[in-house]
């Protein structure tokens, strides 16, 4: 029963590129919807980027409703949420200034003291810090895209770099759009997830590009579309295998890794699926824009 891979054909012959128009339309729609969503609905920014106070408590003999009642008499903008199980409750508050936060945490703690078994965590991010963190996150993602572009450019021809960055931008926007729809909290960990997705997606793309480059040298007479198809097929089982093992690990992290890490795991799962899709259906077809064959270039 072992060695299932013997059943999978060594050289599958699926016409991926033939479907490119459908997928291109699908992706363009997805990106447009994502952009619209991001500008209208936006992301569910966590306190890292919005500022505010967050307190996680484990409770006894109480309900979320009772706690809400106690707190909402003193705070108008308090929101409570069960976190993993009904005894763990997350309390979020918007603060106006830094000074307020110290008093806020203290007075919230005093108000609910006798309902609480343990104050599991308290976080406060001031308004200056949250905007700095957002800026730095944005910077990190942009620099990563540029650095990856430069690396691909150095290792391959520039057309490959272009294809890779188109695919990457696609992945980032598509993922952000889905995060907006699913209302997943956007935090510092999400930025880390997005960067890792960029790394993962490019990894996938590079493996296929590597094969395209090799085949360009090997099959000088083959039509480009067929050559790209062949390259995708050559690397197909690897693409699927690696995505599956990565997803297995991520699903395990999503289910067992605890509540705090769950949004990160979910973002990564979405990103790995999109990244794998884009390597095959976006990055490779983009290369068709350029009518290149190394020997065709005059310079």
């Amino acid at each position, binding site marked *: 029963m072992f060695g299932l891979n013997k059943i999978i054909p060594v050289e599958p012959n699926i016409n991926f590129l033939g479907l490119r128009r459908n997928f291109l339309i699908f992706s363009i729609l997805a990106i447009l919807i994502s952009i619209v969503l991001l500008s209208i609905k936006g992301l569910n920014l966590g306190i890292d980027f919005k500022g505010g106070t967050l307190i996680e408590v484990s409770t006894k003999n109480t309900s979320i409703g009772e706690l809400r009642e106690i707190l909402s008499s003193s705070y108008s903008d308090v929101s409570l949420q069960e976190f993993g199980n009904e005894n763990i409750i997350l309390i979020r508050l918007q603060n106006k200034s830094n000074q307020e936060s110290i008093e806020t945490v203290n007075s919230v703690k005093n108000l609910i003291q006798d309902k609480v078994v343990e104050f599991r965590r308290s976080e406060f991010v001031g308004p200056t810090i949250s905007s700095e963190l957002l800026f730095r996150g944005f910077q990190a993602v942009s620099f990563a895209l540029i650095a990856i572009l430069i690396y691909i450019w150095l290792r391959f021809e520039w057309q490959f770099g272009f294809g890779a960055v188109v695919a990457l931008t696609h992945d980032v926007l598509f993922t952000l759009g889905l995060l907006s729809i699913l209302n997943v909290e956007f935090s510092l960990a999400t930025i880390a997830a997005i960067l890792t997705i960029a790394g993962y997606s490019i990894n996938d793309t590079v493996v296929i590009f590597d094969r395209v480059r090799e085949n360009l040298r090997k099959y000088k007479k083959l039509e480009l579309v067929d050559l790209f198809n062949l390259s995708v097929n050559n*690397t197909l089982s690897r693409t699927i295998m690696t995505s599956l093992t990565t997803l297995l690990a991520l699903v395990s992290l999503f289910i067992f890794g605890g509540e705090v890490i769950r949004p990160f795991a979910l973002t990564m799962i979405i990103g790995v699926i999109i990244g794998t899709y884009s390597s095959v259906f976006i990055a490779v077809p983009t290369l068709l824009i350029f009518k290149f064959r190394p020997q065709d270039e005059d310079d």
Partner: protein
Amino acid sequence: MKNYPIWKSFTVVSLVLLGIIFAIPSIIYDENSENWFLKNKINLGLDLQGGSYLLLEVQLDVLYKEELDNFVDSVRLISRDQAVKIEKIDIQENEVVVFFGNKEKIKDIRDSFFQMYRGVTLQINNNKLSIKLNDEYRKIIQDSAIKQSLEIVRKRIDESGTKEPLIQRSGKKRILLQLPGVKDPERIKDLLGKTAKLTFHIVDNENTSALQNNLAPFGKIIVSDMYDENTKYLLDKRAVVGGENLVDAKGSFDQTEGHAVSFRFDTEGAQKFGKVTTNNIGKNLAVVLDGVVITAPRISSAITGGSGIITGNFNAQEASDLAVLLRAGALPAPLEIVEERSVGAGLGADSIAAGQIAAIIGMVLVCVFMILIYGTFGALANVSLIVNLFIIISLLGAIGATLTLPGIAGIVLTIGMAVDANVLIFERIKEESLKQTKVFQIVKNGFDRAMSTILDANITTLIAAVLLFAFGSGPIRGFSITLSLGVIASMFTALMLTNFLVYMYLSFANKKELRL
């Protein structure tokens, strides 16, 4: 073992052994071990062991404003000496503009002022002298304020009994604190939230109209009571002695006064205090802390011993905290908490347990999957995967890296991604096996052809991880560290260990054909 160089086997085996041996300290994890070997364990981040992370900002604006006030006082003094009338003083955000009654002596005033404050920008325009706080001058104020603040914060934290705190400057005007194992962050925040500037002033009881009009004449200030805002005192602006002359302060208990803080002055402070109390018997002496009067007792006799007590409506904790603050000294400017992340030990332990379960289950799933797909070769890749995990752990321990919750996520993710290099190799071997029949040639070509792809693919992941380290903060850096180490270790295990294992297997099984 056909053609497999001995040196290569030796290198692979010894690296693997080292990887396993150096993972031992982190796996045993004896927190207090002093053993030179067991000490090389992973440090747990604040989010895993519990503790507080605080980012404080020094309120430099307060200092700049104070300095402008000093300018005003000095100009008033100088012009009084020179007998020049001041018509108007205009205090702006960054400069003080003084309008004089006549312009004859304005140059002299400027020169004497410059003697006192070298470095400020002074400009004369007709009867107008503008004194500007320029960038260099501000920078001097800023640097000394941060340096002093760091020192005071360190003293206060030490006094609070926190073990192994990390206190460092962060950027231009911030101080970063990491306090492992702190159970009551609110108390620490209270300790840091006070400037603790203590001064003693003589109270002016005669000029009652000033208090009524709420207008302090030159050289006096109006200060409210700590417990009752409506009770005001008119005080001499100049402090007779201040907290910088204290050598000791302790919480104490007195039958009649309740909880109090007893203090002792140094020689200079004791002399000043003795002189003032001798000359002002019958007047009141106000004890001012951070701009409010704690108490203002009547001086009934000269106090020359250089020690005394401060009474107020303190409880035991307040008295002892005030003593801590006085011992540590005053901050040059208030500190504002701009970011706080505190995690209780309970959540930290839960996170570790959840992370371990996720890692183990992820590992089992990936291993089963690899065996299902690749059979024996999959099992060999699994050996590499497990060794890979050991190597990550030992590298983390060896470089003294900090493991955070996102760091654990990075390890779990690496488990999924680390088999990639093996998959690339196996797929190449599969292709090569269609082209020829010589088993060892197939394997050699498979590894050789996969090599450049593996490098390209992993370097791009490393680029993302390095940028994440450069721009990320705290826990997120933990993620980029484990991800980077995981990627590097996976390249080693795939290209060397899997290679070694495949050769060993093929030699011992004496395979004549290879069908992967």
